């Protein structure tokens, strides 16, 4: 399966879930995602589920606290000016959380499918315009640069006695210092690259070359099975939904 195929399948699944399908449509989506997880991702699917839980569970608890605990009504009941119930609010939060869990899990599954590719290889395989791929690669590398800058700033402020490695109130008081140090560290790293390394080497041009897919096909292999199935399922869900809602 190619990254283009996997990302397209993932996109269709997410778009369909956002369209709020009825119960049967939702069941089809979950079945498709499970099939993808088992066949294409295998054991690593558990990691995807774990990550989705880490993102969505605290969110679900928070929304329950606000809407079930504090407000005690579902938003559509408030909008319709009818007396609401905590049960309705709970159902609403559960549905929304379920949808969010599905979206995050699908995103994670798609990325895990290609865990054996390096970031450059993954971006290279995508059928996107060259400027978009360049921007993607640069953003990924800048996230790495920022993490490195955070590390450097941490070392500086701990060594100077301003922060401690363990959490403390002093750390909170000096958090502005950390933000400033991170920014200056990142800027210094970038000045070194942009003034000396990149102009002399033409490194950006090398990046463009490294991101060029060449003549490889956009879709190949298992894409030819997954894409038609997903599209067909999508059409069926939308049609069934139209009938259901009518």
């Amino acid at each position, binding site marked *: 399966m190619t990254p283009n195929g996997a990302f397209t399948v993932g996109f269709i699944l997410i778009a369909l879930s956002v369209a709020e399908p009825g119960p049967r449509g939702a069941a089809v989506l979950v079945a498709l995602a499970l099939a993808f997880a088992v066949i294409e991702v295998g054991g690593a699917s558990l990691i995807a589920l774990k990550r989705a839980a880490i993102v969505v569970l605290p969110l679900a608890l928070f929304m329950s606290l606000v809407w079930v605990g504090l407000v005690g009504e579902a938003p559509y009941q408030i909008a319709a000016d009818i007396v609401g119930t905590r049960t309705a609010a709970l159902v609403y939060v559960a549905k929304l959380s379920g949808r969010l869990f599905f979206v995050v899990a699908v995103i994670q599954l798609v990325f895990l499918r290609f865990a054996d590719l*390096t*970031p*450059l*290889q993954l971006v290279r395989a995508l059928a996107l315009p060259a400027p978009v791929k360049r921007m993607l*690669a*640069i953003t*990924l*590398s800048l*996230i*790495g*640069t920022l993490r*490195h800058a955070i590390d*450097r700033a*941490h*070392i*500086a*402020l*701990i*060594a*100077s*006695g*301003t*922060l*401690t*490695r*363990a959490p403390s109130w*002093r750390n909170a008081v000096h958090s502005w*210092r950390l933000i*400033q*140090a991170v920014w*200056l*560290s990142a*800027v*210094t*790293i*970038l*000045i*070194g*690259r942009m003034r*000396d*390394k990149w102009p*002399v*080497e*033409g*490194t*950006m041009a*090398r*990046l463009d*070359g*490294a991101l060029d897919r060449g003549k490889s096909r956009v879709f190949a292999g298992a894409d030819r099975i997954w894409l038609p199935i997903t599209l067909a399922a999508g059409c069926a869900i939308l049609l069934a939904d139209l009938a259901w809602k009518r």
Partner: protein
Amino acid sequence: MPRRELISGPNFSGRSAALMALLRDAAFAAKTFYVGPYSEAALSGLTSSIADEVDLYRAKSTDNPASPGRAVFAPIDVAAFGRREPQTLSGGEQVLLALHCFSLSAFPALAIDTALEQLDPANRDAALDYLDPRNGLGLGADVALIDNRLPPPLAGWTARERTADTTAFDCDPEKVVAALAPRQAPAIAIRNLTFGYRHGRTIFRNVDLALAGGTAYRLAGPNGAGKTTLLKLLVGVLAPNAGELLLGDAPYRPWRHGNRAIALATQNPDHQWSGATLRDDLARRRAAFAHLVGGDAFAESRLVKLAAALGAKSLDTHLYELPLAARKRLSWLWPLAGALPWAVLDEPSLGQDPATRVGLAAAIARLTALGHGVLFVTHDDDFAARIPHRVLAIGEMQVKEAP
């Protein structure tokens, strides 16, 4: 015949600018692989794995085949690093990675600005052998080099001597320690120390070490052995997985309570600033000193004099707008100022010309003689020889005092 250019001279004689001008010279190759002083100018910064970094530079069919069959430079096993981020390598390992990438590339030229100074003796010799025009390897590339530990003449290289064109950053490290009073630094004891990075290898296992005040120790070991990791543990940036530190006779946990004993000068000076200006940075240190130790470390007038001795005309100097060599010198200020009993200096002489190295070594020797504890890392044997010291050897998860 490929060119070999060695640009030499004191700091602030415009060597780096001359290097850049040389690379733009029509007689020099059109594109040059560049290895700068620190990682930001040695690695591309466009990849998030070492395998990608190598792949980015590897010669492709569309490249100019200026160097068919160039010998590969691989003193470390790059394939074993594969998925790690390039920035997680030590300074020396990054330089080796950069040279490895060059050796796989089709770049017709190579420029190195003091980067070889970060290599341990074995790797440095291997790199210089690789670049030697007489080695018959046929690099097929022009090379331009700046290195403070290679005074000309160098066989097979054209020397370009520069003279200093400014006194703006003149420094005298010995002046910083001149007015220091003697003190007795407490001993540091390391007991049963074990440390490994999460998802990474174990760096230290059950290390026992006693460091006495009033003594200088040189931490020696190959690139990537864990020297900087040990310094981070002592300062509290990292916490050990097991074991303890003692300061004097009392347990010492800087990772939890803060660093109140060690003034650190980092290998890359930009890893140690706590403010945008020198005034900000010193204010943070003095505030931390007041909180953790008590009292005021220094009067401002004294700090102005110390900063001037290291080339900063004003405390309002914007640190990040200074040249790199000047920033490196200011990184010595807090350790040499002597507010804290221990001074730890990680490759303090990087990028410094011979005259400055002599002055720095003398200052460190004086600091030790006054009773401070000193721990320093350097690959420069000449520099180390000027400081009476004991050797701590790092390797195979152990740190032991060498006889």
